[in-house]
């Protein structure tokens, strides 16, 4: 996995349609162009992340409203769009909410441990953004195809525990401490079944690289042979990111929002944005591992170029692949939101019981079955 090679590929991909000259690959010109393109890539990714989180928060409010037979945010945004239907109203809601949070006072209470208190949102946010490094959005559309991609994702996922525990401890509030501890117990309990869930596809492909795993699903998506692994992964991942029905760490009705109790303004907003970005990440991982990433089902493929009269549109397969990826990922995000507004919160003993007594043995069983299946099956499938 040559770092430089992928960078060039990525930069060509972005610049290719606009610049028809060959990009020089050495010397100062090459280096400067390289840096400029990388800066563009970073800006695109960051802008996408911010917009994505804004959009998801708005979407969650709309879906909850639909489920509870309300309209949800309708006022902020163009009025003619709000008149059109409930799904187009209030599209600027999250933007104004974020601006409002930025204008709020940043309170650090007397008992707080200042350093930890100020660092925790940063750790949370950074860990979330780092996961985007290895997610393949389309063929070749991956920032860095690490050969230990899956392991990297698991490791980055564990960062959240540190952030939440830091936030809980250093807030200097009883609610925060309890929320932080619950969260730590929950996240570490569900990390083990999650790894067992990921193990199935890894065993079949024999690689930890997400690109390899997606490409191995050309004919069959892995959720067909690995349905148990998918269920184990999806339930554990829901618990990992503290979503209802596993939202005990936040539990606004008993712990007054747990580890975020003492946070105000922008720091609170950072935890919030990180949560929604995490939702997208675990959906994206589920799509990459079990639902064929950017691929169409049944081995169908997009045409490489489209001829429109005199125009030739290049890279059409990559673009449409990315569109397919996003459709699949958003489907799972919507399923997560559906969970939240349908199920009540589980009790803490049920939570740990489910993790250790049900999901872990099921994950082990799946590993066993996958192993036996691979042993008796002839090679090359």
């Amino acid at each position, binding site marked *: 996995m040559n770092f430089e090679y992928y960078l060039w590929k990525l930069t060509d991909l972005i610049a290719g349609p606009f610049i028809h000259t060959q990009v020089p690959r050495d010397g100062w010109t090459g280096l400067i162009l390289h840096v400029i393109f990388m800066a563009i890539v970073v800006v695109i990714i*960051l802008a996408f992340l*911010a917009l994505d989180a804004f959009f998801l928060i708005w979407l969650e409010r709309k879906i909850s409203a639909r489920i509870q037979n309300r309209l949800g945010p309708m006022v902020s945004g163009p009025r003619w769009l709000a008149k059109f239907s409930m799904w187009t109203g209030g599209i600027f809601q999250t933007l104004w909410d974020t601006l409002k*949070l*930025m*204008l*709020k*006072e*940043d*309170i*650090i*209470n*007397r*008992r707080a441990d200042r350093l930890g208190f100020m660092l925790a949102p*940063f750790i949370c*946010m950074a860990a979330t953004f780092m996961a985007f490094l290895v997610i393949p959005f389309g063929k070749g559309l991956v920032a860095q195809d690490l050969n230990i991609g*899956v*392991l990297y994702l698991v490791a980055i996922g564990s960062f959240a525990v540190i952030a939440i525990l830091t936030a809980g*401890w250093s*807030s*200097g*509030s*009883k*609610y925060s*401490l*309890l929320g932080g*501890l619950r969260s*730590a*117990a929950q996240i*570490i*309990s569900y*990390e*083990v079944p999650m*790894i*067992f869930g990921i*193990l199935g596809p*890894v*065993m079949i492909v*024999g*690689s*930890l690289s997400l690109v390899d795993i997606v490409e191995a699903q050309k004919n069959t998506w892995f959720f067909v042979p690995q349905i148990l692994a998918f269920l184990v992964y999806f339930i554990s991942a829901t618990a990992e990111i503290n979503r209802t029905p596993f939202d005990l760490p936040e539990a606004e009705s008993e712990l*007054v929002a747990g580890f975020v*109790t*003492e946070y105000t*303004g*922008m720091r609170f907003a*950072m935890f919030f944005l990180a949560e929604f970005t995490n939702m997208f990440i675990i959906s994206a991982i589920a799509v990459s591992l079990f639902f064929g990433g950017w691929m169409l089902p049944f081995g169908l493929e997009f045409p490489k170029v489209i001829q429109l009269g005199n125009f030739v549109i290049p890279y059409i397969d990559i673009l449409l692949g990315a569109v397919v990826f996003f459709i699949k990922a958003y489907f799972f995000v919507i399923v997560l939101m559906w969970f939240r507004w349908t199920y009540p919160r589980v009790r*803490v*003993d049920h939570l*740990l*019981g489910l993790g*250790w*007594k049900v999901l*872990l*043995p099921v994950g*082990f069983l799946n*590993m*066993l079955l996958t*192993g036996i299946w*691979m*042993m008796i099956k002839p090679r090359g499938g």
Partner: protein
Amino acid sequence: MVAGALFFAWLMRPSKPDPIKLDVYECGEETVGPSQVQFNIKFYLAAILFVVFDVEALFLLPWAVAFKDLGIRAFIEMILFILILFVGLAYAWRKGILKWA
């Protein structure tokens, strides 16, 4: 971007601290006792259990990558290894560590 957001927030937001505002939230009451209270020992036990299985999971991943080449012997060995760990889990289960009153 995050730094930018925080910088603008710092420019725009008011800062008027007062002793009551800086107090810890406890439903409007005055705070009683230290905030870092003693917590349930169960959290510690769950953490120990996690460490055991996480190390095992870390061992499983390279095994899964090399699974195609290792053959039946490595498969049986791994099953035995996991079964031994599950005996440990069963012991913890029996001892009631997973039971939260």
